[in-house]
């Protein structure tokens, strides 16, 4: 019964929180409207959603989000220093990261994280060979970068979505 009423609890919760943020959670009416939207919108948009894997480890997901936020700060600083430093000594490179995950939705999250952490921009996810192509601003040792991305981001993401 609950399952049929709320087919995607995580999506509903996210919509409700987003609505609360948009309206500043100002009044009871706004929150009720948000609750209604959070119930109706997953139904209306159901056909557009890919079969997203379940969020298996929410606590790990929160810790992971905090780590990504921290990494973004550190990497911002690192890239900022490179940008004002001598540009000629940079070694930009295309890097191929072989993926162990096999889910398009999770691959999208991983490539978004790679793009958000400055210094790397994901260019393409090859779904035939499951390789993430990315461009790095300064990667003197591409293999080390591949190891970092696999260990620091891909492994926890696979644990979170258990895929």
């Amino acid at each position, binding site marked *: 019964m609950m399952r049929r009423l709320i087919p995607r609890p995580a999506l509903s919760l996210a919509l409700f929180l*987003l609505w609360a943020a948009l309206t*500043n959670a100002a009044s009871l009416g706004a929150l009720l409207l948000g609750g209604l939207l959070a119930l109706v919108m997953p139904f209306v948009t159901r056909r557009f959603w890919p079969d997203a894997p379940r969020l298996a480890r929410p606590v790990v997901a929160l810790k992971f989000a905090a780590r990504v936020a921290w990494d973004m*700060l550190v990497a911002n600083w690192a890239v900022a220093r490179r940008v004002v430093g001598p540009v000629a000594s940079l070694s*930009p490179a295309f890097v191929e990261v072989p993926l162990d995950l096999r889910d398009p939705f999770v691959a999208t999250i991983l490539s*978004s*994280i*790679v*793009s958000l952490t*400055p210094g790397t921009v994901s260019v393409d996810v090859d779904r035939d060979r499951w390789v993430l192509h990315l461009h790095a*601003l300064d990667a003197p040792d591409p293999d080390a970068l591949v190891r970092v991305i696999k260990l620091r981001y891909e492994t926890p993401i696979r644990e979170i979505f258990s895929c």
Partner: protein
Amino acid sequence: MNLVIEFVVASLILLGAAFALLGSVGLARLPDFFTRLHGPTKATTLGVGAMVLASAVYFTATQQGFSLHEIAVMVFLFITAPVSAHLLAKAALHRSAPECSEEIDDAGK
């Protein structure tokens, strides 16, 4: 508004402005399309993030209740920024934008 909050807001705005500037400096100084792509992604994450945070702190301090719009702004920015960067990079690969290193043939498909 007390002095501490004023100081926090001012430093967040300055931090955001500094990173937006650095993003633009990167856009101007870096040699080719793909390296230039890294400037704007940086400006949106930390630059806009810090300014939006400053706005949240300011309006929470000066008005009644919390100001939460800014969180929604940040969420949407962080979702859409990688998508636009990804689209730009893909379009550039498709059109074979000139690049300084010679590895473009490996990555292009």
